[in-house]
């Protein structure tokens, strides 16, 4: 986070810079960034949690590639099958079939003591569908949307921002006016109108959101380009005869990679909330397909009788969004050249520890560097 910039008195600035310089001597830019990122404990943990969730979502119930996702009876007429190429997973139940209800009301079979998952660890809904399978499928779709939107928006935002910032003049005017028009409509409103138009398909919804969510990225990239295009290395490239295309993509763009990566990450955490909100309102992914928001919308009347239908999808949304946010924070720290290392090495836990140590005589917090302002 850029706002973590500590308040340092004159003396320690010199010291820290020298420490910083010594620590990064002989390292490539990528190595410095990687090293800084690995120091952000929250971000590293989040990467692993997110990877685990992606694996869990896709391997557990398998997935469906292509097809309309509609349910049709199979040739023997006993089961429903889903349209498209189906890859089965290791979980024994599917997200669309009904099963015998195990516990009264379809309560979760998960128990802590003795520890066991049982047949339906997250419970069943009132028609006997397995909630674990449904949540996993919902998570797949929500993650799909997040990644597709992330890619589309980043590409559009980067290209348009780069063009506007590099060429300025009327190109800039046109692109920025388009951006203004999209920004003034709340994203949820525009997303809902588009979602209603395309009617419930996850892939199309993701493309549509991707087409409107690039505005913030374009503005940031444009600002970066506006300042970078005045630098000497751009002049040098131009004198050497490089084409505009080459200057934009080979010379300037690599210098904006930090801004792009960070803002793409934060965009993705906003997208999961947007997609689930749209699906909650009924303008996003709709039945028979599943998204985490759609599950909550479908079951929110049943909160009093079957709270487990409500807790799990919400929990997974929060965990995914939190992980992406933490990764974004870690990336921002890693790409920020002004980053000072001293305060960041304190984790939340040790900070709370220091605070309570404050009540033990002799140990006083606030005596470390970077606290110039808080000592009255």
């Amino acid at each position, binding site marked *: 986070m850029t706002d973590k910039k500590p308040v340092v008195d004159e003396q320690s600035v010199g010291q820290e810079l020298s420490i910083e310089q010594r620590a990064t001597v002989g390292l490539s830019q990528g190595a410095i960034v990687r090293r800084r990122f690995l120091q952000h404990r929250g971000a590293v943990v989040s990467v692993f949690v997110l990877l685990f969730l992606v694996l869990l979502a896709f391997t557990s119930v398998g997935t469906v590639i292509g097809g309309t996702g509609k349910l049709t009876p199979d040739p023997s007429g006993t089961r429903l099958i889903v349209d498209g190429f189906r890859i089965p997973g290791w979980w024994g139940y599917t997200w669309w079939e009904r099963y015998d209800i195990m516990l009264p009301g379809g309560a979760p079979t998960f128990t802590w003591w003795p520890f066991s998952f049982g047949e339906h660890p997250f419970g069943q809904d009132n028609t006997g569908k397995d909630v674990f399978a449904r949540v996993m499928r919902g998570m797949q779709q929500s993650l799909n949307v997040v990644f597709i939107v992330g890619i589309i928006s980043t590409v559009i935002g980067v290209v348009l921002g780069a063009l506007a910032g590099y060429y300025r003049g009327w190109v800039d005017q046109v692109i920025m006016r388009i951006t203004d028009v999209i920004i003034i*409509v709340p994203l*949820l409103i525009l997303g809902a109108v588009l979602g209603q138009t395309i009617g419930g398909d996850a892939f199309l919804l993701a493309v549509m959101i991707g087409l409107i969510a690039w505005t913030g990225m374009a503005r940031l990239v444009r600002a970066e380009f506006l300042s970078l295009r005045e630098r000497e290395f751009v002049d040098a490239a131009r004198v050497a005869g490089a084409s505009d295309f080459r200057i934009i993509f080979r010379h300037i763009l690599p210098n904006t990679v930090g801004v792009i990566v960070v803002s793409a990450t934060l965009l993705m955490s906003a997208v999961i909330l947007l997609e689930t909100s749209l699906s909650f309102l009924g303008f996003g992914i709709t039945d028979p397909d599943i998204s985490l928001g759609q599950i909550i919308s479908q079951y929110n009347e049943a909160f009093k009788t079957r709270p487990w239908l409500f807790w799990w999808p*919400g929990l997974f949304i929060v965990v995914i969004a939190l992980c992406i*946010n933490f990764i974004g924070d870690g990336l921002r720290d890693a790409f920020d050249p002004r980053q000072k290392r001293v305060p960041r090495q304190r984790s939340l836990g040790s900070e709370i520890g220091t605070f309570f140590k404050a009540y033990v005589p002799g140990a006083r917090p606030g005596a470390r560097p970077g606290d110039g302002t808080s000592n009255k």
Partner: protein
Amino acid sequence: MLTFVARRLVATLLVLLVASFIVYVLTANSGDPLRELRGSRDPSAQDQIAYLSGLLNLDQPPVLRYFSWLGGVGACFIGQCDLGISVARGQQPVIEAIGGALGSTLQLVLAATILAIVIGVAIGMTTALRQYSGYDYVVTFLTFVFYSLPIFWVAVLLKEFGAIQFNSFLGDPVIPWWSILIIGLVMGFIGSSIVGGELRTRVISFVSVGGGIAALLILLDVTRWFESPSIGFVGIALMSVATGAVVLFTSTGFHNRRALLAVGIIVVLTVILSWPFQFLFYYVNSPWTVLLVLAILVGLGLLVGFFVGGDGKAVVARTAAIVGGLGVLPLVLDQMFIRWDEYVARIPLSNGVIATIGASTPAIRRVDDTWLNMLDSLTHMLLPTIALMIISLAAYTRYARASLLDVMNQDYVRTARAKGLGERTVVMRHAFRNAMIPIATIIALDFGAVIGGAVITERVFAWQAMGSLFNEGLHRIDVNLVMGFFLVTGILAVIFNVIADLLYSALDPRIRVS
């Protein structure tokens, strides 16, 4: 400054015009408004389809329909608004639908925004001043969590969990000892973190804040205050003294004797005047009396400040006026809580005191009593406002913290310290104002998120307000209804932009000069 605001206003209006065209065409193309009728077996269905098609000009392409709609909007300038009719609502004119829906959404959005700004800026500033303290880390972590919360989930949780828990607590208002202990410890922790300083100061602030809050809770519990809450004379006095102390602490500090005297006088005046004001509130039962009382108290504050102020008239008068203005709050709350028993008697038996459905109780809406209606709105707005506020709160906290940290690093702040100014003067007079400049721009940016959040919150709490216009309109492809919603939110967005620009130019002199 005026040209700056005017130029921005014109640009925003043009952008809004183009955006309205896009939304109109997209909505019109998103489906068939007469789908239900087309599937109907009713013999009169064909006639209805023909009638509605004619009424909505469905034979024309959406682009043409947009311009006839725009013509209707343009007619507003000559006093003949025509926003079309709503098919989804039995051919009710959209302007009527807006009229019935606007008030509650406006209240919700404004309350959530103002609360988010005030609380967010306060939290962000305190964390910036106590950077790298435990409090700072806890708040930073919590802003991450709040950023990641889906608003519909929070709203449903508040509705199904918060309201029901609180209502059953009000049914038998006994605060268990452990929750008093936890609340006391947490408040003590926050208090001592904000005060900071040496170990001794921290322990004192921990004990006094935590102990004070715990004692207050125990007092409320013992006197069974929650059974029929009231403010009364004592409550008004306590709240006025507390607001006076907070305002005095942040603006001039207690060492400024003249300010202390002025604030003391205005607090005493508020408490004394609360008695005659009661009769005013009772006999002139109208929301305008609140403004009248506000004007009286602010005026008294200015007068007192002027006469007591001495050398620092402006500062003292401002402080006293703010204290006087805030003194209206306990008076209004007192009036509302006087009607508590009447309110409880009038709400449906199945509902709890904290309502979870709708924006008001119909039975109370019919009673011609401003204060009772206010209390009713308050209990209905409480949970949606919290849900809506939580999301913006995280953003404001983070930006306020980042912005104040940036400013506190600058040379002029060091200069201010170097010439011997106190920490309060440095922070409140020199740093705060400049730190607010980025916040002013965020108000306009955050507005879209608030409107989106309002649509979701109103859906969860079943409000018949602007959000339901949009939901209903879009589900049934009722373009006029959706555009009614869009028009109102667009105008609100323009107003928020202008407010942000005005704040911006008030805070940043460079804008005023150029």
